């Protein structure tokens, strides 16, 4: 393996470019983190721009965790995310598995129906009416049930299941296993990557839950994290409505952003490995 000088230069160039891209991606996050940890007066003295904090304070976090709605909203979001993701995964798997079996009668028809929802939806008002008539308004179910299944994920899972060798199923059947048993004991253990990937899609979706909460929930104690964080962030972007409004300082705003995004950022590294694998397996596998 002798590398020519040309190769080395090319490598170096690629390395530098990638490093620059990486830095560009990390930069905003670092800024948010730094500002959230710096006393606001410090931030202002520096003309509102800080990358490495010179003095560190946790005041903003302390304030958010003790005086705002954030802890409660955090609880709501965790609840919605956990319950939601479990239900999402169960229903998605139960839907994808039969659709992946070629012998399913009317398979094309069901597939069509799944794809149809990818392209068309009822719109806000009909959805609202359905949610209302099911009595889901003002409950955490309004944030879980309307998006119980994301058809795109069903299709990814379906094609993953299709990629499993048919012989596995045959041998399982010869041993006397029924479909449920095959799904639980043969298919499920083999599809960890796709399960984690799709689970992550759903988790992130629930964690970022905003629109449905704004639409279907009016009870403040049920507001999820993103709604509360947005309320903190948006106050400086609007003209003054009332003199009494306490405009949150930038430090406070950034701290709320960190609180809202940190948990999900922390999850990523652990799922990274499966994530890329799952994505690939789901896509090109003729």
């Amino acid at each position: 393996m002798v590398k020519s000088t040309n190769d080395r230069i090319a490598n170096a160039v690629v390395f530098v470019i990638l490093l620059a891209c990486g830095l560009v991606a990390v930069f905003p996050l670092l800024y948010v983190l730094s500002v959230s940890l710096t006393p606001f007066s410090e931030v202002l003295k520096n003309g509102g721009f800080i990358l490495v904090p010179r003095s560190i304070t946790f005041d903003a976090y302390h304030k958010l965790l003790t005086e705002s709605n954030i802890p409660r909203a955090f609880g709501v979001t965790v609840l919605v995310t956990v319950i939601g993701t479990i239900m999402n995964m169960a229903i998605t798997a139960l839907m994808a598995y039969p659709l992946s079996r070629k012998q399913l009668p009317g398979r094309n028809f069901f597939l069509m129906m799944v794809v149809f929802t990818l392209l068309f939806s009822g719109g806000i008002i009909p959805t609202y009416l359905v949610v209302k008539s099911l009595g889901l308004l003002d409950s955490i179910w309004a944030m879980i049930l309307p998006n119980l299944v994301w058809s795109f994920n069903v299709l990814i899972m379906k094609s993953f299941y299709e990629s499993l060798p048919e012989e596995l199923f045959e041998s399982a059947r010869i041993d006397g296993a029924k479909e449920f048993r095959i799904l639980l004991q043969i298919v499920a253990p083999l599809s960890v990557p796709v399960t984690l990937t799709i689970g992550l899609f759903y988790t992130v979706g629930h964690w970022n839950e905003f629109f449905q909460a704004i639409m279907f929930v009016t009870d403040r104690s049920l507001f999820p994290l993103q709604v509360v964080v947005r309320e903190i962030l948006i106050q400086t972007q609007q003209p003054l409505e009332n003199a009494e409004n306490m405009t949150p300082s930038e430090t406070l705003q950034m701290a709320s952003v960190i609180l809202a995004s940190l948990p999900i950022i922390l999850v990523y590294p652990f799922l990274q490995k499966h994530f890329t694998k799952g994505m690939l397996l789901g896509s090109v596998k003729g």
Partner: protein
Amino acid sequence: MKRMKAVSVMLAVIILSCSVLAGCSSGNSSNKESSNAPGGSTANSGESAGAIKLDIIETGNNLPTPDKDFIKQAIDKAIQSDLNLTVYASGDDYKNQLNVRLASGNFPDLFQVPDRASLKQFVEQGLLLDLTPYMDKLQPVKDFIGDESLKKTTMDGKVYAVPKAPNIPYNTYWIRKDWLDKLGLQPPATTDEFLNVVKAFADQDPDGNGKKDTLGLTSSKISAFAPIFGAFGVGDPNTFYVKDGKLTNSLYDPAMKDALGYIKKLIDTGAVDPEIMANTGLQHQEKAIKGQAGIIWIDWPNLSKDQFTEQIKKVNPNADWIQLAPPKGPGGQYDGPFDIGGTSGIYAIPKALENNKEKLQKVFDLLNFVSGQEGSMLVQFGISGTHYNLDGDKVVPTELMGKEAGFTWLYQFTGRPEMTYLQTKFAPQTKYIEFANSQPRIQILNGFLTNPDGYNPADAGRFIEEEFVKFIYGKNPLTGYEGFLSTLESSMNFKTYMDASTKQLEELGYGK
């Protein structure tokens, strides 16, 4: 065959489990829902028997959860209600929510109407309850906001909503006194002096850091020049006012061209914030706090509240912002326009409530309560003895008021007596409040207008703003002003708007 059977069992299981899940969840919350429905005859929410649940939505923020919301608890106790107030931080989110609820028939019992255009739309769609026959039941509200105020929500002679009590102007120019002193200048009293000071602030390094990094003037959008327009005796673009006994629109005011000419001169100095049209939200305020600008057009809360003075002092202990009286010009001396038809909020009741007498009465009770002595004090200052003490007639705030009563304004559905309220809540800022309130303003009438069909205010507004920017930045010569007006009339239906507006205002007795 066997396989097929297994599959169909599977399908059945899926369908069953779906319906069971849905069933469970609807069972869980059906109690809540029934009391939510506006048509429900008995709306008992179980835990507080006899209390009628009222759904209210508006824009706002910082509302605590119901268990910590002492205003809700106090009102509930006073009028036997169960208030469910929901506030939306963003106006767009609020409009979405409101539209969806109105369209789906799940009406809130009292809601904020975003603006007069929406009021007109809702009235035409027959969504709002005509309050005219109920006026005698709303006597306390009427007394509180004044008869004149109801004009703002009257359409075709019928009152469709309740506006908040009149507000007062907050905006003035603010100027860095320490910068003036450093450069040996006086606060500018005329437009010429104003020009010089703006230029000096940018050129002569008032912050003394050896760099040319300061701006003479900043603010957000064209309103930055409101007192300049005022100095020429015109209102902000597209405002109606009575001038020399005649109803005038600022765009057609002959002095408008002079004002634009002067503003162009101001911008040509290069001392005006080049991002002035791009500043949104509080970006201009930030620039002022950071010490980047010497003059700013802003409301007093955003520059003189304790929170901000603290920040200003931290950046530069010598920074000294003072309010500036509007500069005198050829057209007089006016600190921008003030809309006497404007209101800081309109609240309407859905027509659907007509058939639910009990609930309707409760909404009236609520409005009357927050307009009455006891209720008004509650929603202004909080709980007597906890958040304030009475010293004769004077309200003495306690420390707790500043700490936890900051959200009470969300319950001021009919507003508040602005001056006394602000002076109590913002005692240290009293002189700024009084200064801003006592400046002469051009009284504009736009708040009374209803847009005619075929006129799109958003489009026209954007067009006017764009063309004005071209004029003041010298992209188009001012000789093209008449051309601009005729394009406006021909492509934006502005003529229809002018005719309709003139007719409406004359009916109200202006300009005759």
